[in-house]
């Protein structure tokens, strides 16, 4: 028995509900999965090719801790070009191993023991555990389908206590597909300013905004100095497996984040950085062709999925970003877990139970439309059959 060596703080955090479900799904043959959380595109060939060339040229060494300066300069140009925000590539920016590392770094740098962090519920699975690992306390704020899963300034403000240090602001949202409007973001900006909170803006899905402004939180007046902007290459360029992200923050915060990164990680893999640089450079030159092509494809499948789910009788908020639908299955009388488990056993379709994304996700399931259209339509037939059988 070696568990006496395990810290109770770590042991107390349960493993991701998604992984638990994965064990069942993984053993099913012929299952159609709407349970994935990544693009169905392969990284564009010119990007892969740049990484291969780099390997063949013998670029197998470390890079600077913050990442290749040439990549950071491209990121700076990209942020300026797409979101009209300026960051100094030398002092206010670092390249990380996926956006996930950046989230972890920001929390570890900014939280003191007992600090509270407000985060939308349902939300991405890693925020609350990362807050806990960093010694803080996650404070989930329920977002509602009737508000189109947007976070309201009022709800944020009513969750604030003397201990609140930060707000995690992940829009477009996984799993709900919610996108914030400029007006709502401005109201939230007023609240965080009034209470002097840090904002950790996870904008990994920002390129996949189908309706409304593609607005980065840090671009709001006065917000840059209290925002850690987090983004990466996984979703916009279909580069999930490369593990490449970045963080932009005021110099004082970034300096400390880089210190942890320096000691714990060293640097993001060099070939991923080379690939990321190619992705940004080529797309800046050709009007974001790769991004637009995938955006159009997701957008069409989004409409097909919403239509199909509604025709099945499920009430489904029309997602405006990311690549998920988050329909309610409450009318079936089943819990999210029961629905997904039975759907998988009886009709071999994988969806993710909504409560894997926090207690407020109960009564919902997450369905990913980054799925081959014909497979997706077959999945809808099966789901419909399943619902009819209840």
């Amino acid at each position: 028995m070696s568990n006496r060596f395990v810290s109770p703080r770590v042991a107390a955090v349960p493993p991701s509900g998604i992984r638990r479900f994965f064990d069942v799904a993984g053993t099913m043959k012929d299952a159609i999965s709407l349970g994935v959380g990544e693009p169905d595109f392969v990284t564009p060939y010119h990007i892969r090719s740049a990484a291969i060339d780099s390997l063949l040229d013998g670029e197998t060494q470390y890079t600077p801790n913050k990442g290749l300066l040439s990549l950071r300069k491209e990121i700076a140009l990209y942020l300026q070009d797409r979101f009209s925000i300026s960051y100094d590539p030398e002092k206010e920016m670092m390249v990380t191993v996926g956006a996930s590392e950046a989230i972890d770094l920001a929390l570890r740098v900014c939280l003191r023991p007992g600090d509270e962090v407000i985060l939308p519920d349902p939300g991405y699975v890693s925020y609350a555990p990362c807050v806990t690992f960093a010694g803080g306390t996650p404070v989930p704020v329920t977002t509602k389908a009737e508000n189109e899963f947007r976070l309201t300034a009022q709800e944020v403000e009513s969750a604030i206590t003397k201990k609140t240090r930060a707000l995690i602001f992940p829009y477009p949202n996984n799993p709900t597909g919610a996108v914030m409007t400029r007006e709502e973001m401005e109201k939230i900006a007023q609240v965080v300013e009034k209470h002097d909170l840090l904002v950790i803006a996870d904008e990994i899905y920002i390129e996949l905004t189908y309706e409304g402004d593609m607005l980065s939180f840090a671009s709001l007046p006065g917000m840059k100095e209290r925002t850690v902007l987090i983004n990466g290459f996984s979703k916009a360029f279909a580069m999930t497996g490369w593990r490449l992200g970045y963080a932009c923050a005021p110099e004082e915060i970034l300096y400390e984040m880089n210190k942890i990164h320096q000691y714990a990680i060293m640097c993001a893999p060099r070939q991923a950085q080379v690939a990321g640089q190619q992705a940004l450079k080529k797309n800046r030159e050709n009007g974001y062709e790769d991004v637009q092509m995938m955006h159009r494809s997701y957008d069409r499948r989004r409409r097909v999925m919403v239509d199909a789910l509604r025709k099945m009788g499920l009430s489904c908020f029309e997602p405006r970003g990311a690549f998920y639908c988050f329909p309610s299955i409450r009318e079936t009388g089943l819990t999210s877990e029961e629905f997904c488990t039975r759907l998988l056993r009886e009709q071999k379709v994988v969806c993710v139970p909504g409560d894997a994304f926090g207690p407020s996700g109960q009564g919902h399931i997450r369905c990913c439309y980054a799925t081959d259209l014909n497979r997706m339509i077959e999945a809808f037939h099966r789901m419909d059959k399943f619902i009819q059988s209840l």
Partner: protein
Amino acid sequence: MQSLKAQILEILSQDCRTPLERVAIMTGANLEQVAQTIDELERDRVILQYSPVINWDRTDKERVEAMIEVKVTPQRDMGFDAIAGRIYRFEEVKSVYLMSGSYDLLVLVEARTLKELALFVSEKLSPLESVTGTSTSFVLKRYKQDGVIFVGESTDKRMAVSP
């Protein structure tokens, strides 16, 4: 934002069997608009035909294909169009392109057997008055056509569930 025409062309170029109802859902246009736009595209000869990409090697049909580089003498006032017309009317001819470079016309020809194809070149193509030379290359293996990769299986390499 793409125009409805551009959206429809992109959708049909990926799968021309996409039902109109689905095209309407995908584009957010109504069914009537979609049908009308497709009619227009057909009438304006933007959409000429709806045909599948077929891997004939997986069928039992015998078939050979060749690309023939053809040098011709252009005709006064008609340029290359007249001679191209003489060539593209043969039913063995699948495609004809006017090319820049060391020859003039690229002709894609399909026949049942090698012999048939050779006879086409020697008896039909070469004897044409304006044709001054041909160079025939046979297709050995098709890797990709019309954006579709023919070799290997495409598999989804993603895990069934991920965050």
